[in-house]
């Protein structure tokens, strides 16, 4: 009889307090909707930023007269002795020549010989370490002023320094901004929902007081409120997820083919997102109502 009684109580209270109930549901709906839009946006943005960052490279040019043995030695050195090395790709003179020739056939036919050196394209283990990697490849000169490569066969080490640091700063700013926005949004959601719950409970503080005076135990008072919170949270969550689904089908999918950002592969799938959001809305509402109630239960 008891669970049935609690559920009946919860629905009675929802229908008797239609307006506060609607407000609570609407606040859950809005929050879930905003979160549902924002989570994929954050993911797409950071994904795009990471993709840009992954293009940061350090080029190690060998001397033109370097032999196969030199190349092998430098490769071993890069792989084993230098910090921050992620991936090493060897581009031989011939490969480089072929690549460049494809890009600019006339100039290279005119040139006749191959002026290009053997090159190692070194990807740093983390994009942020690109400059550190470059420094690791150079010995500071004992006599002061400038630096020389760590191996005699290396002619120079380049990483288009300006560009690298620009990319790094820009993507870092984007990521930080997104992170800050996400935190703000989560805080705002929690405040909004807890405030709505507190308001609707505050209006029923007297009711709780009376229940306590009649001899109701805490759980007897709490269960209907928690069920009410779950019902309203689920209702708001379901509506918001439905809106998100409609929005995705109606707005996003037609645009996806035109915009790379929207089509970014690493965003969360809609079913998973929907499940997470539903879970969160129900959980937050239930926890919120039972926690807010605790204050009023101390009569």
């Amino acid at each position, binding site marked *: 009889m008891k669970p049935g*009684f609690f559920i009946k109580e919860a629905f009675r209270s929802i229908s*008797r307090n239609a307006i506060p109930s609607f407000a609570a549901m609407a606040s859950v709906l809005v929050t879930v909707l905003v979160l549902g839009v924002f989570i994929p946006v954050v993911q797409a943005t950071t994904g795009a930023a990471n993709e840009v960052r992954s293009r940061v490279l350090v080029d190690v040019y060998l001397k033109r007269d370097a032999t196969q043995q030199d190349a092998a030695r430098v490769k071993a050195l890069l792989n084993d002795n230098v910090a921050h090395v992620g991936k090493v790709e060897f581009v031989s003179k011939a490969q480089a020549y072929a690549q460049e020739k494809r890009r600019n056939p006339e100039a290279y036919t005119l040139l006749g010989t191959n002026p290009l050196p053997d090159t190692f394209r070194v990807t740093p283990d983390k994009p942020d370490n690109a400059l550190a990697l470059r420094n690791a490849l150079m010995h500071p000169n004992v006599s002061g002023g400038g630096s020389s490569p760590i191996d005699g066969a290396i002619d120079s080490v380049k990483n288009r320094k300006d560009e690298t640091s620009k990319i790094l700063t820009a993507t870092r700013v984007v990521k930080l901004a997104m992170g800050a926005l996400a935190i703000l949004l989560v805080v705002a959601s929690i405040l909004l929902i807890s405030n709505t719950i507190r308001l609707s409970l505050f209006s029923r503080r007297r009711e709780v007081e*009376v*229940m*306590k*005076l*009649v*001899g*109701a135990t805490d759980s007897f008072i709490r269960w209907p409120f928690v069920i009410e919170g779950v019902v309203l949270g689920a209702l708001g969550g379901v509506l918001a997820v439905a809106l998100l689904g409609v929005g995705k089908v109606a707005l996003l999918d037609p645009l996806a083919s035109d915009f790379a950002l929207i089509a970014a592969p690493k965003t969360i799938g809609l079913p998973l997102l929907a499940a997470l959001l539903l879970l969160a809305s129900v959980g937050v509402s239930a926890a919120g109502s039972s926690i807010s109630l605790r204050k009023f239960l101390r*009569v």
Partner: protein
Amino acid sequence: MAIVERHKQELERQAAPGDRAPAVVEFRGVSKQYGPTDRGIEDATFSVQRGEFVFLVGSTGSGKSTLMKLLIKEIDPTAGTIRVAGRDLSEITRKKVPFYRRNIGVVFQDFKLLPDRTVYDNVAYALQVTGRSRKEIRAKVPDILRLTGLATKLHSFPDQLSGGEQQRVAVARAFVNHPPLLLADEPTGNLDPETSVGIMQLLYRINRTGTTVLVATHDATMVDRMRRRVLELHDGRLIRDEYNAGYAQSDLNTAEFGALLREPAPKPRRRSVTDDIDDIFSS
């Protein structure tokens, strides 16, 4: 009057037979200090026996509500012991308080009804709380509402009732669990004199079924007319404990009792310093 009979049986079943029944309420040196200089009750000692009808009087701020709150364990005393039906209240843990409160009916000045429930549901809630079956609730609630004269208002909401009717609902709710003790904190404070008499008659009727009734009120003249036991508080101190049972015949019926309430009051006999001196010499 089936409900009255049933209530009598209920009470007799609850009181262990042959056992020397302890006082329903016993205060021993009870003090309640709200702050360093702010005292609610100071060193109160008295006891109330089963079946008594006791008035608690005093002006606002004299400690009546503090005493009531102590009795329902809404607050704890800073000193002394309170026993209700032989049970020390300080031994009741917070978790057990709801179960303790089910043995006490409480009526308040502001009625404290649940605003979004009908009269029937308000009374039924007190039974639902204790986990009674739906069948039992359906049998008891209309019965008790008939006793309180609300048989035609079962499905009205509190805001559709007059003050007197709302207070009758509150009394019905307090009484439906057959509590051995019924507390009323200014039950007539919001009501006109004629309606107040009706509520008092109702409380008297409940008292006659064997329930101990403790009524707090600041309406001293009304109390004096009733010729019942009177406890008077002033500034947190108990200054009067007068057994006036002799003035009224103990077996008045409700109509006679109502007539009594409308009579002019005898002069109250307050305890003064000279009484204390008399006590010293006489003992």
